[in-house]
């Protein structure tokens, strides 16, 4: 259960960012979580809500974008999903074997929505 620590890091980042926009109210926080990030989205949401509660930021909706694993083939440039149950990562277009993971490990604070109070 490291989601509480991660939610805390996120909330600190939100506070820092909010200070750069005085007079504005934070209306929403955007977060990107990859399926290989080792982070449980619901546990993170639960932790984030618990941290925000009883702060001036409450309520603060958290919008989570889940990022599936995707690979790119350096040979032909094709990008494709790598999925259960086989997680086949050879390029389906040209058969290339050395494909690179380009998405799925994200744990990113993607945006902040600011509102005029």
């Amino acid at each position, binding site marked *: 259960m490291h989601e509480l620590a991660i939610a805390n890091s996120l909330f600190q980042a939100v506070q820092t960012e909010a200070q750069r926009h005085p007079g504005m109210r934070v209306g929403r926080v955007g977060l990107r979580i990859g399926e290989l990030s*080792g982070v449980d989205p619901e546990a993170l949401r639960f932790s984030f809500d618990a941290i925000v509660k009883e702060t001036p930021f409450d309520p603060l909706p958290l919008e989570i974008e889940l990022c599936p694993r995707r690979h790119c083939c350096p040979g032909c440039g094709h990008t494709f999903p790598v999925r259960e149950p086989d997680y086949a990562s050879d390029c389906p277009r040209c058969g290339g074997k050395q494909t690179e993971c380009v998405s799925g490990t994200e744990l990113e604070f993607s945006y902040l929505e600011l509102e005029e109070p």
Partner: protein
Amino acid sequence: MTERVPIERKVLSENGRIAAELRARFQERGTVCLNLISSPGAGKTSLLERTLEGMNRDERIAVLTGDIQTDNDAQRLARFGFPVRQITTGGTCHLDARMIARALAEWSLADPELLLIENVGNLVCPSSYDLGEAAKIVLLSVTEGDDKPLKYPSIFFKAELLVLNKVDLLPYVPFDMSRARKNALRINPRIEILEVSCQSGAGLDRWRAWLGERCQKARAEVAAGAG
């Protein structure tokens, strides 16, 4: 009026910053830092015991071992005469880069050639934290399920080496070795796999050879950087 401000920053950017500093320091000083991760009881401490046991006393090797409570592991490992330091997290389920930086700052340690970090026993949380290591190593014991790589893909994806431990128990457990290998390779086609038993000693020569190669590579990189 609502305005959307793009941030596009890693949530653990502060951890990432400290890890990058550690990594630069390790590379500059020729230290190979390895981060050992597994569930509790898979044999991280046993593997370290067998590793230290087989080393010459003049080898420059050090161990940082993380646990939520107790310094039992440091005590187990200290008897081999190499520098060992315990990090007690006091509840936190993983080590983070700051804990490593702090432990190194408080430790009067000559730069080792090999720094082995034993993470807190947990197959999930440690995978999210970069410690500045050269490689993550995941241990899986045959008393666990052979489907663990599919259930905990994050760490198997990020590890460079999978050590399958307790192979001496294979006759007594329903663990399917070929399925475990296949599952690990599905998640990470580049992962290297070693089968060992810390009890019988089987496979440990290959583990030591793997460590030796990593150190040799680091020495070559430092020499190339200096030249």
